């Protein structure tokens, strides 16, 4: 177990180096130049040249990469070429916001998904099952910008309610933070719920056909004990897998939802960076997201061994 963990962590290094090279190359291949974007159609060639030099873009690509990667090794993510702001503190600040949003979305999603998924599986092909499956399909197919816009406009039009416009952290003012995050979290939670619900249903249906369930029933256990005591844990592996993937994605920042609700999360930070061709911001942001994604997957893999002790690394 310990040696497995060390191996996994060491394997992070080539992954991150690969990602850093990939992001750097792709970003610099994209047409558009931060200096010209910043100066817009007003720019004179000399003004662009001055700004490019200030941004350090006049140096060869290789030396730009090495300079950036060298900084990273010392924990220095560099500064935004536009605002001159330190990138790492911004990433962390915005990650905290995205984290709160993700947790809330996941809580909403799972609270809906798991009970309904189980219900749908043990009553498969009943009316309840059909209704749940139609709702799931809707949750997956309606894009989240549509759900989000509907929520926002519906509430402000019919009830004159609009979420607070400044972001507040849960640890500062839980009630206010709840109001800030509830709409985006519901929007994202619906999508999370739909995915997890489908997986829960199919995993449970498979498990409920297994011999040990028949044995459990034969021993005279109640439906509740059979489902909660025997089936749940044995169906968890695929559910946890998909949940892990979702959390990984959400922690990268849901660009559309953040944009719609003006949540200054990680997704918006990186997206703005892309529009402005703020290279260090995008590079740092993507690298950070990749790291989070890999770590979340590692945690999920460790959770497997707890769910199913037969799994050993």
């Amino acid at each position, binding site marked *: 177990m310990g040696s497995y963990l060390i191996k996994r962590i060491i394997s992070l290094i080539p992954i991150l180096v690969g990602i850093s090279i990939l992001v750097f190359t792709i970003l610099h291949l994209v047409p558009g130049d931060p200096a010209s974007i910043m100066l817009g159609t007003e720019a004179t060639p000399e003004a662009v040249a001055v700004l490019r030099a200030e941004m350090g873009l006049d140096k060869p690509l290789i030396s730009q990469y090495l300079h950036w990667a060298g900084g990273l090794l010392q924990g220095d993510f560099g500064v935004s070429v536009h605002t001159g702001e330190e990138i790492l503190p911004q990433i962390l600040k915005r990650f905290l916001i995205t984290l709160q949003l993700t947790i809330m979305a996941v809580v909403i999603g799972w609270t809906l998904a798991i009970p309904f998924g189980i219900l749908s599986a043990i009553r498969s092909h009943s009316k309840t099952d059909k209704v749940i499956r139609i709702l799931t399909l809707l949750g997956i197919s309606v894009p989240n910008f549509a759900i989000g816009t509907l929520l926002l406009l519906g*509430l402000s039009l019919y009830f004159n309610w609009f979420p607070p416009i400044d972001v507040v952290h849960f640890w500062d003012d839980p009630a206010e933070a709840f*109001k800030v995050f509830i709409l985006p979290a519901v929007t994202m939670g619906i999508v999370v719920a739909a995915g997890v619900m489908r997986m829960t249903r199919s995993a449970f249906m498979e498990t409920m056909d297994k011999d040990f369930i028949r044995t459990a029933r034969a021993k005279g256990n109640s439906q509740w004990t059979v489902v909660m005591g025997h089936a749940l844990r044995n169906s968890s592996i695929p559910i946890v897998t998909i949940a892990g993937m979702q959390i990984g994605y959400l922690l990268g920042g849901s660009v559309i939802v953040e944009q719609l609700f003006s949540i200054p999360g990680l997704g918006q930070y990186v997206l703005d960076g892309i529009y402005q061709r703020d290279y260090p911001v995008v590079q740092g942001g993507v690298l950070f997201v990749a790291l989070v994604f890999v770590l979340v997957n590692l945690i999920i893999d460790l959770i497997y061994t707890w769910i199913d002790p037969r799994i050993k690394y």
Partner: protein
Amino acid sequence: MKKRVLASFFLSLSLMLSACSGGGSAPAGDSKPRSEGASQTEGKSELIVAVDQEPVGYDPHKVPAASSARVYSLVYDSLTKLDANLDLVPGLAESWETAPDGKSITFHLRKGVKFHNGQEMTAEDVKYTFERILNPDTGSIAKSYFASVDTIEVPDPATVVFKLKTPDAAFLTNASASSASIVPKGSTDLTKEANGTGPFILEKSEPGQYVLLKKNPDYFNKELPKVDAIKFQIMKDEAERMAAIRAGKIDISAVSADSAKLLEGKPGIQIKSYQSLEYSYLGINVKKKPFDDPRVRQAISYAVDRNQIVQTVWKGEASVTGPIAPALTSWALDPSSYPSYTPNVEKAKRLLAEAGYPNGFDTVIETASTYPDMVESAQIIQQHLKAIGINAKINQLEWGNYIDTWKSKDMNMMVGRNTSGVDSDRSMRYFFSTTGSANVWNYSNPKYDELVQKALETVDVQERKKLYDEAQKLLVEDAPNLFLASPKNFYAVRDNVDFSPTAAGESTALVRASVKK
């Protein structure tokens, strides 16, 4: 049925929300948000203005982006100023005189004006500012505005004399630009810190969320500003801005013409509009075949129905424009004086045939996907060109890519938008003289160059206007660009806020904005 389901869903959601907020949905008027930075004590007024873009640094000499300019134009002052009617009024300079030969301008500065850090503003600061702008290492956009400056002299702390190489009729207007903001002597890095003399002080900038400005209690005009604070709230999505203003969470928001129609007459909201200085254009690369033949460009001009662009793209909320936007009422020529503004397909076809393209040709129109109005204009032009046999493919570019193409001077045709500028010199020389920094169309006509240069050096207003009249006609006939439509700008404003935007700009109106008691 569907509606009822939806309504009951919202009802339950809002019940849930009000249960936890303990207050329920507050009525529009008093639902001012409680924000961490600004204390909303009795009698204090704070305006919340929604903006769609985040500022990218606050150096007035380096960053031309509108998202930054709206902030620094409230923090700094310039030597001169434009009032709501675009007339020149004193700024940091109380008065000025131009020498009879037009080659020197003397500014008399206001006395006792202080920067936000308490230091007094003097002629040395003005000198430093203009030297900073003119220094190539600064990379200032405004450098080209002041190309006529030879030397700057400071005879005493309250007087600055600009000695010019040639007379410059645009100097006083250009000096009013926020890109010519007066900064304290010795300033180097102004990206994050701002120390101006302006009506507001930059209090706090929270990336991704808001920029907070507080009233400058020592502002030289004791009557202004009328509010205690302005908070620029970053809201990138128009649907969100609309919902927020309806709920009374924000006070002012720029909105599109479409949204303005939707919000018109809604309780608690007033819609304000004005004719903007912007205009849309179809740029043509006059060096590229077949556009090197002026007859081809004229044919295109006759083929395009500008009125349809006004009606379809801007829903009638725009004016047909020439090279100078109609908002500059005393300078812009009436578009009906341009013959090629009356659509004439027969004439267009004849011109094409004369140029040797009786069956038309294939070409490309580049435009920016970021701006739906540009794409729609391109689509209408595409249809009109089809009628005379020109098959244009529309190429929608992402903004960064679009700027690159614009700068390349190697496009075919391009749909875009310009800001006409408050002085005709900018509308004309900057965009179309052979050496103009924004002349990416390879247009070069010695007669035109001479006209606009002469106009720049002509201080007499009537004389100057005659020269620009001639230049405008010449430009429309040569057609390196087709000038299309100049839209109105719309703002949604809460009922209790007095805010009257004009072409002079948002900041001019914000300084005068007030909250009704």
